[in-house]
């Protein structure tokens, strides 16, 4: 039996979660082996070739503030940059970048290759080495062992992966790639419960076979902004295209539903409702005449075009029939047909707060295998798992991002404490602190943590710090400086803002007036024009929404206090009179550490919370 070496950490899988985990751990000083089936396929984008979006873009910016790499790579591989919800306030704006997926892979491979502490090992991990209940490494197919003090499993959709196109069914983790079935069995041997999830992809079409005249052109933002503090400037290189499925498509689908594995019952896994297949959409919304499709380049100038919105597992001839009826796609040459993939994920309720697997010391999980969907959710977990594996090996306290600190905290808390019944995706509606968690404040919230872990250089933090100080100063000036102090300035107000200042007003007064266009005030107010362009709007919105933000901060404080009431270690809810059996079971399953966590557990009622709080109070007194 060969031993490939001894490492501090083995990361199983080199997807978006695996890359962040490996890079964070290595940069924090660990020797890391990344075991992957195919060393060329690093950080692939098997689904939509884009990073970001509403909620997801928030995650990317937070990962970046913490020193992760996803935003950096997306900036460089980006083809088209668009901020969603641009017409709304900063809290809900979601940056998104259409990416050249080939370039993204190259960038990420180079990044891994450039870190001496990381070794990329090709092979299928078939088992975990477990000694004394703790994980001590992995076993590759063929028997090679890699010893390690900790393991992070980030296997995406590969565990018992099963691909469906019509009745055609083959094992595989992604198109053309084998699955990893034996690792599932290994996890089950450790006593872990798995469940089946499903996701799907649309067909890929040849660029030259599409009629762009029949589609609507979708451009990137005129003033594209990067995700990362490492990036100076980004540019839009290619547009995307929009078309719609006509009613005839719905008819084709309805006629062939019996041939869809989704409807014939062949697929057992649960798919995400926010990303349904076209056959799902047609069945569930029969009154919708049209369904919008976005045609997106997979690589810059490359031949493959991704048909966002046409995810399907219908047989190939039906996919052809659909395409023939869609404006612009009538003569499309299919490079790859759409397919659905079913895979194993960890059932909820088996994670520690730092994404370690409960009851299996030394084992962490991150990414789609945890039950999430999306590259961003995966990367965020990879970062959290990587950092925490390091902290645990150093004997330090875990890092658990709070819900109030960012979507990364919302993500971890939800995954650890809540039930999910479909692939979990981030939405801004998942945060009770939404107004405070805009991408504009991500660095203020998280960069210091990135510095603490050595993932963000201190000088970068200092530059940012000065920037925040300048924003605060501008905000104070807006509140104190009078607008229209002299006749010249008053004329500007009248002509450019349509404001006749009867009594003295400050710039902040004008910023808060709903009848005055915000853009115009931003362009006119000296406290704002003195700032770099990207900060002007941020300060303007913080001024305009000051009252709401203040209230949000107070609410956040209140929730945080609850979050800090600790449930004592080893607290046994079975001894608490008045708690129902269901609640007791949920408490034992999710093991909340604080009352804040307990409140998030499914099935917790306010009454049960009251009983629990009283019991925790008594337990605390007993211990003291």
């Amino acid at each position, binding site marked *: 039996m060969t031993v490939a070496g001894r490492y501090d950490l083995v990361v199983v899988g080199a997807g978006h979660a695996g890359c962040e985990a490996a890079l964070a751990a290595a940069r924090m000083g660990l020797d890391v082996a990344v075991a992957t089936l195919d060393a060329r396929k690093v950080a692939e984008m098997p689904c*939509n070739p884009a990073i970001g979006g509403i909620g997801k873009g928030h995650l990317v910016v937070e990962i970046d503030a913490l020193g992760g790499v996803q935003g950096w790579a997306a900036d460089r591989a980006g083809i088209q940059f668009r901020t969603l919800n641009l017409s*709304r306030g900063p809290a*809900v704006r979601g940056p998104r970048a259409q990416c050249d997926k080939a370039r993204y892979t190259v960038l990420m491979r180079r990044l891994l290759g450039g870190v001496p502490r990381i070794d990329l090992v090709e092979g299928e991990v078939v088992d975990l080495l477990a000694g004394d209940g703790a994980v001590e490494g992995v076993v590759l197919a063929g028997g090679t062992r890699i010893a390690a003090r900790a393991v992070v499993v980030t296997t995406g959709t590969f565990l018992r992966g099963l691909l469906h196109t019509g009745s055609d069914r083959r094992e595989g983790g992604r198109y053309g790639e084998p699955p990893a079935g034996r690792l599932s069995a290994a996890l089950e041997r450790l006593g872990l419960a798995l469940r089946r999830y499903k996701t799907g992809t649309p067909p890929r079409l040849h660029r030259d076979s599409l009629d762009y005249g029949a589609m609507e052109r979708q451009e990137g933002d005129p003033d594209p902004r990067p995700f990362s503090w490492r990036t100076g400037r980004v540019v839009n290189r290619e547009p995307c295209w929009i078309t719609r499925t006509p009613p005839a498509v719905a008819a084709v689908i309805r006629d062939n539903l019996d041939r869809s594995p989704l409807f014939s019952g062949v697929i057992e896994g649960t798919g995400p*409702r926010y990303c349904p297949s076209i056959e799902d959409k047609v069945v569930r919304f029969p009154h919708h005449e049209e369904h919008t499709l976005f045609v997106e380049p997979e690589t810059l100038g490359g031949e493959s075009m991704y048909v966002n*919105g046409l995810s399907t597992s219908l047989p190939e001839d039906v996919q052809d029939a659909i395409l023939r009826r869609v404006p612009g796609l009538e003569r499309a040459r299919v490079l790859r047909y759409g397919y659905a993939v079913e895979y194993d994920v960890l059932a909820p309720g088996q994670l520690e707060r730092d994404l370690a697997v409960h009851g299996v010391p030394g084992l962490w999980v991150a990414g789609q295998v945890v039950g999430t969907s999306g590259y961003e959710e995966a990367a965020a977990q990879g970062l959290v798992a990587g950092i925490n594996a390091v902290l645990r090996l150093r004997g330090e306290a875990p890092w658990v991002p709070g819900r109030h600190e960012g979507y990364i905290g919302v993500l971890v808390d939800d995954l650890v404490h809540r039930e999910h019944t479909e692939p979990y995706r981030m939405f801004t*509606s998942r945060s009770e602190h939404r107004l405070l968690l805009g991408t504009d404040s991500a660095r203020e919230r998280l960069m210091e943590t990135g510095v603490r872990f050595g993932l963000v250089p201190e000088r970068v933090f200092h530059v940012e710090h000065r920037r925040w100080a300048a924003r605060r100063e501008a905000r104070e000036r807006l509140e104190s400086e009078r607008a229209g102090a002299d006749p010249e300035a008053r004329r500007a107000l009248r002509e450019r803002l349509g404001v006749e200042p009867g009594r003295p007003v400050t710039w902040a007064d004008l910023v808060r007036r709903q009848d005055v266009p915000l853009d115009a005030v931003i362009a006119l107010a000296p406290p704002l024009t003195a700032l770099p362009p990207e900060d002007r709007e941020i300060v303007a919105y913080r001024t305009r929404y000051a009252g709401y933000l203040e209230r949000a901060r107070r609410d956040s404080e209140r929730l945080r206090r609850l979050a800090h009431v600790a449930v004592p270690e080893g607290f046994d809810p079975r001894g608490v009179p*008045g708690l129902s059996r269901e609640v007791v079971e949920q408490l034992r399953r999710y093991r909340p550490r604080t009352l804040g966590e307990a*409140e998030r557990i499914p099935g917790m009622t*306010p009454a049960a919370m009251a009983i629990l709080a009283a019991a925790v109070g008594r337990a605390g007194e007993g211990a003291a």
Partner: protein
Amino acid sequence: MVRASSSGLSSVLAGGEDTIVARATPPGTGALAVIRVSGARAWDVVRAVAPRWEPAEPWRAVLIAMDVDGVADRAVAIPYRQPRSFTGEDMVELIVHGSPWLVERALDAMAAAGARRALPGEFTRRAVANGKMALEEAEAIGELVRAETRWQARAAAARASGEGARRVAAVRDALIGLMASVEGALDFADQELGYDPASVEGEIGSLVGRLDAMARAGGSPAVLRGAVRAVVAGPPNAGKSSLFNRLIESTRAIVSPRPGTTRDTVEAQIALEGRAVVLVDTAGLGIPADPLEAEGVRRTAEALADADLVLLVQGADLPEARLPKLPRATPVIRVLSRLDLAPGAVRDGWIPANPATGEGVGAVREALAHHVVRLLPDTAGEGLLSVRAAAAAAKAAGILRRAPREAPELLAEALRRAAAVLEGVVAPVDEEAVLDRIFSTFCLGK
């Protein structure tokens, strides 16, 4: 998302699997007592006191032979098969002779056979947990048990029938729909999911309308209390205490020719037309002569502020008393007393009466009954909500009225706060509930 910790929510703990037993009728000696058993082993457990009973048919009362601690007796047993029972579980109701000793020994025997003594309210909690009734209904059943007048019992029964619960459910539904519109527009802006301010405004309007109706269904203070507070006021010596005693048909209040005899307010409850009336006798209106009297006058003012109805007693021979400004449209029954001391002083709209002799008191009682029926109408029981539910609805309606419309993300915050206020009245509206609605309403998915 909605994470305001709510207070005062009646416990809706889910039911356990164990079998519970308790006496359902009040403690003490009575002709009969009812013992209730609920849970998977309910039928079995009863055999600890009726060894020969073979429960055959559910929902049919049978005479059974009991053996309790060697004492043979007979009882009526009604077995229920889940889910068609009060709690939704298997149940038995045992009607036994009401000897406290017999009941206690029977409960002991069933406990020994594996049942657990039920905690107060546990049967109802199980009914709620098993979806047999909504929380509002459960609260109403609590009130039904405590009802003292026919009107209160009817109002509680109407609530227990689920009308209030349906109203509450409709509010929750509308709230989720509204949140789905706004949250959906925020989270799925890239999918052409529109945010139509006009239609959202319409949804807000209809939700506010529902909440207002809910707040009103909480009814007037009289309706919420289930009783009319009638305060007797007037100048000292007008005969207020005399009238009070006549109306309650007892001599609770001290009557004397000395002005200012009544210092504290005195209350007594009577029933009129099947409705509860709390009569409140007061010190009276006028210029206080000493600090003690001043305190009496202050309490009078307090009692008047809380009154659903005022009985103004004016002595025909006494200086005119001025009523303070009354809140709302408080009805006033005017009684002119002491006409024997000032003959010919009759006034329009005043009921002539001599509280000392009882003359004219019948007419006063009639006027009182007339107003009480108006204040506690027969229809008030329909969809009646608890004070808490009504107050929460009023608060939520206020939040929505003032909700900022300038940006959907700010409006969304207000909606979340409204949902938090309603938590405990409606089932919690969390982000999963909203996402469920978004996914079922809008066609999403790139």
